[in-house]
């Protein structure tokens, strides 16, 4: 069976692909393509964050008894990402390419350092403390925001 690390890391890579497509299109001012790719990215990202916040983190917290530890930091960083996504939506609506690219650069770095912490620390720990049973994985799959 796939581990939590495998599944969630795969979601990160998928988000990266969609993100780079949106950023690349916007840099060429191909707005129609940028709109489509950005919408796909945004939905994938928000779904991923929701899966963590509503299923994975609560399971981790209840197993370890820690609600103010690593998951609290991850939730705070999710908030930061959501705030940036909102700003990027606005820049895209206004076709403001410089603003869009400045903000996506920021989101990209924020996202990557966040992903690194999850992939190297939080997910492997989750794999240790949680049994990645089909129920937990199914619960995560059922979370969608699109």
């Amino acid at each position, binding site marked *: 069976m796939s581990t939590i690390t495998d599944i969630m890391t795969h979601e990160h890579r998928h988000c990266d692909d969609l993100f*780079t497509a949106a950023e690349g299109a916007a*840099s060429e001012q191909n707005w129609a393509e940028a709109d489509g790719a950005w919408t796909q990215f945004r939905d994938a990202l928000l779904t991923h964050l929701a899966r963590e916040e509503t299923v994975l983190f609560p399971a981790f917290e209840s197993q*370890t008894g820690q609600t103010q530890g*690593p998951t609290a930091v991850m939730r*705070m960083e999710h*908030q930061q990402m959501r705030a940036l996504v909102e700003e990027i939506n606005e820049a895209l609506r206004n076709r403001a390419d410089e603003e869009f*690219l400045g903000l996506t650069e*920021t989101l990209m770095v924020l996202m*990557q350092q966040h*992903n690194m912490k999850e992939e190297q620390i939080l997910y492997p720990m989750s794999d240790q403390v949680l049994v990645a049973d089909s129920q937990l994985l199914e619960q995560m799959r059922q979370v969608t925001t699109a």
Partner: protein
Amino acid sequence: MNLAGLSLDNIPPLRTPLGFFLLAPVFGMLAALVLILDPGALSSRWQPGMLAFTHLLTLGFGAQVVVGALFQVLPVISNQAIPAGATLAPWIRAALGLGAFSLALGFISANGWLFALALGLLGAALGTFGAALALGVSRIRPWRDSSRGVALALVALITTLVLGAVQASPRFAPELGLYRLQQTDLHALWGGLGWCLLLIMAVSYQVIPMFHVAPAFPARAAQWLPSALFVALLTTSLAEAGALENLALGVGLLLCLLYGATALYILSRRKRKLVDYTVRFWQLGLVHLLAVSLLGLYGLGTGGTVDSRWMGLAWGLGFVGSVMLGMLQKILPFLIYLHLQRAWMKNPMSSAALPNMKSLIPTPASRRQWQFHLSALGGLYGALVWPVLTPLAGALLFADFAWLTRCLHQAHGRYQTTLDSMTAAGEPAPCNNGDR
């Protein structure tokens, strides 16, 4: 599971890395001034001006940037902060800066007291930093490739320092009789291939895939490359001059080639294809790494000698300097953004608009940095061929570091302005109030 001590939010206050970054280019400008004021400085590696120039760049600029970056990078790559970082940083910064300055003055004036002072200050600065870093690294669980690279780089730094002190000892304690000519090469090898390259390797394993959405370094290579390079250096140092020493050095240079080629390949496979001057600086630096390694191998293979001034310049400014300039274009804006956003989240009623990363160091400013750096490198290579160009090369190098100073201070100014607007009109001060 024991989660005690685990924090995913160990980042130091902004003033910790920023203080080092803002001070570093001053030493780059001082190094450039040496060339402007001493047109014969580049004529030999043993010239006092050349020695002052080299150490102002390596200890003044390079070590300041690296120490500042490590305060920031260690928690990101390992979740462990450098203990007492915020308290120690100002002292380390001051001692390192004064030490580098005294050493450069010592070379120029041949004053033994200045050497003793410099070694005391540098020993205190880097010794304290090394001890704190070692403590931080020892707490890393689980151990990863990047952590191993940082630990090995630390040993290389200490070795470089000890060899440097030994080589400087005739200036202030000649009775010890510790000086050996060939130890100067080892000092440079441990500083360049050890401290600098091991650290760049460790950091690149994380930051190249992270910032540029590139594939990860091959796991096996990432695991054994730093250790193999370290063993090659150790063998080079311990072997008697002869076949084994040359063989070990040759292996070390082949490992440099392997690393450089791999890193270039990984960069070429990045998914983000936007114009990014950090990528260009990395590519420029890695091409220099390949060139120096090939030149070194050529020298070993033919039994000839390659002018150490070319090797030193290409390694120091072409490879290490380029990578540092590139990383600063990315790291500093991100750090400023991160701290501002945290301040804003503690103070969400603030109407302050957060600057995005590209507005902190705009792409045209990075482009100008790139142009200045290429000009400086071209000028310096030209000055090695036509020494009459040395003051011009110094002026171009001065412009390179002056531009960096301008960019860093502008970004910092923007940070302060935004923070001020958040705390204005009686709003409660954000948590990072002390980060100026």
